[in-house]
C-alpha cells in the first residue's frame, strides 16, 4: 500500500472512531440532555 493510501485509510479509521464515540455518547447521555432541555424549556416558560 502506498503512503498516500495508508494515510487516507488511517484518517478514515479516525473519522469512523470519532463518529462511533459521538454516537455512543448521545445514545447514553440522551436522558441527561433531555432533562436539561426540559429545564431550559421551563425556564423559558417562566420568563414568558
Amino acid at each position, binding site marked *: 500500500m502506498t503512503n498516500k493510501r495508508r494515510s487516507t485509510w488511517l484518517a*478514515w479509521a*479516525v473519522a469512523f*472512531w*470519532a463518529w462511533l464515540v*459521538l454516537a455512543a*455518547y448521545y445514545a447514553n*447521555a440522551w436522558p441527561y440532555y433531555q432533562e436539561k432541555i426540559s429545564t431550559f424549556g421551563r425556564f423559558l416558560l417562566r420568563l414568558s
Partner: protein
Amino acid sequence: MISLAVVLALALILPGLGWPLVARLDRAGRLDGLERVAIALLVGAWLLYLAVFAVGLARLDRLSMGALLLAAMAAAVPGWRAMPWRRWAAGVGADWAAAPWGTRGLIAVTAAVALSSFLQGLAPPNDYDGLMYHLTMPKFDIETGRIGLHWGITGYVVFPQLLGHLYRLVMAVGGDAAVQCVHGLTGLAAAALAAAIARRLGAGMTGAWTAALLFLALRVVVWEMGTAEVDLLTAAIGAAVVVVALAWRERAETGLALLLGLTLGVGLCGKYNVFAIGIALALPLLATAWPDWRRVGQLLLAASVSFAVFAPHAGWAWLHTGNPIFPLFNTLFNPGQPQPFAGSESIYGDQRTVLNLLTAPWDIFIRPTAKFDGMIIGAPLLLMLMPAALLRPSRPLAWIAGFCGVFFVLWFFVLSQQVRFLLPIMPHMAALAAIGAGNVFSLAAGNRLLVAALGGAMVIAALNQSLFVGIYAALRLPPALGLVSAERYHADTPTLQGGFYQSCRYVSDNLRPGERYLGLIWPHSFYCPQAAADVNGLLQDELQSWRFGTPLAAMTPAQVIETFERENIRFVILMHGWEKRVNDSSRPEVITLTYDEHRLARHFIPALETLSPLAQDRFSAVYDAKIMIEIMKKRIADAETRP
C-alpha cells in the same frame, strides 16, 4: 472590588516571587518563558503560603495579611525585573503577525473562555466542597483571628492548605467576593502548561492553543475555575512536573531535578492526591534513569526536596493528630483510632476489577452518569482525538502516555474514583488530543470528503461543549458582575445539596455575641457563622469525638433542653432534603431526610412541627431554639401532670 484587586495583585505577585528560584534552578534555560512563568506562579504560591502559615498562626486579620501582601509585592519586584519582557513582546508580536486568521480566531475563543471562566469566580460560592471546607476553614480562622483547627467539619480539618492559605489572605484583606478567582489562576496556569506540553510534543502555535482550549472547555475545568476547589492546582502540578521531567530527560541537570522535586512538593502542599502524581512520575523516570546512578541519585534528591517542601504541613498535621498525612492511613499512624472517610472510596465509580479498568476510559466519556460521578467532562472530544496522537509516535509522547497510564491505574485502584481527580492528567490528554487533531487533519489534507467527515464530528462535539461553557457563563456571570443578587442566584441555581444561603444569612445577621446555633446541615455552609456553630450536631465537648471514635451519648428530652441552655443555642438549622444526581436515569431526584434516629433532633422535631421557620430555602430551614425549648418544656410538664 478590594477582593478582586487582591487577586489581581496575586496574579502579578506569585510569578514574580517564584521566578528567581525557577530561573536559578533552570540556569541553562531548558524551559521556555511560558513554562517558566507558569511554574514560577506555582512556586510563588508556595512561598506566599509559607508566609501566611507563619504569620497567620500568630495573627490572621486585615492588618497582618495586608502587611504581608505589601511585603510580598516588594519581594516580587526583582522577579518581574528579571523577566525578559522585550524578548517576549517581540516574540508575541511576531507570532501574531505570522498567525493565519483561523489561528487568530482560535486564540480569541481561547482567551474568551479563559476570561469568562476566571470572572465566574466572582459569583457567590455555591460549590459543595468550597462551601463545606475549602472556604469554611479559612472563614473559621478569620472569625477566631488566627490559623487554627475547625474540628467540627471532621476529616478535612488538616487537609493541605496551599490554596487555603491564599484564600485566607484574600478573605482577610479584601473579603470573600473574589476568593474563588485564586483557584481560577491555577486553572489558567494549567491551560498554559497544556499548551507547553503540546509544544514539547511538536505542536506549532495552532496545536498549542488548541490544547489550551480543549483543556479550558472541559466541563470540569469550566465548573472548577469559578470555585474554591483545589483540583485545578493538581492539574497545573501534573502538567508542570511533566514539563520539567521532559526537560530533565534531555539533559539530566541537578537544577532541573531540584525544580522537579520542588514543583511536586508544592503540589503536595495543595492536595494529598499529588502523591499519586509523584508515583506516576517516578516509575517512568526511574525506567529512564536506570542504571545511570547519577540520574537515579538526582531523582532521589528530587524526592527529598519534595518531602522537605511538604514538611511544614506534615509537621502541623502530626502535631495535632499524630499523623503527618492525616487523615490518610490513619489506622497506621494512630492504631485504635478510626479511619476517616472509610468506605467513601466506593461511593463513586466502578468496581475495581481489571476488566472495568480496561473499559473505564470508554465509560468515563460515554456513560458518565451511569458508571461514574456525573457529566464531568461533557462531549467526548478528547476520546475522539487522543488515539490519533499515536499516528506519529515519539519518545516524549510514549513517556507522557506512560505517566498518564500509571496515574490512571492508581486513580482507578487507589484513589476515590471521582473523575475530577483525573485533572492531573487532563492537560496532557488535551495536548495529546490537539496533537491527534493535527495528525489526522494533515493526513486528510486534500480529501474534502474526509475533512468533512472528520470536521463534522468535531463541530458537533465542539458545539455541544460550547453549550457547557455558555451555560456556566449564563448562570454565573450575571451574579459575578452584580446583575443578579446572591439571593436570586442561590434560589435559581442548583448545587449538590444546596448552599443553605437564606438560612445561613439569617443566622449570620441575627446571632448575637455569646450565642451559638446548632447546624444540622451538610455541607456545613460557608455562609453560616463557623466558630459559633455546633456543626453537624457535635456539641462543644464532642468536636473531636469523630477522631477517636467516641460514641455520642444518647440523650433524653430533658438533657437536650439542658444542653441547649448550657450552650446558649439560639437557632437550629435543619436540612430536610437533598438532590441526588448520579443514578441510572440520569435525572435528578429529591431525597427527603428524616431524623427519627438522630439523638438530638428526634426529641425536638415534634416541637418544631408547631413552629414556623424564621427563614428557609429549598433544602433547609431555621428555627428559634429558645421558643423550641419552651415548647419542649411545656410538653414534658404536660406529660408529667397527665394522669
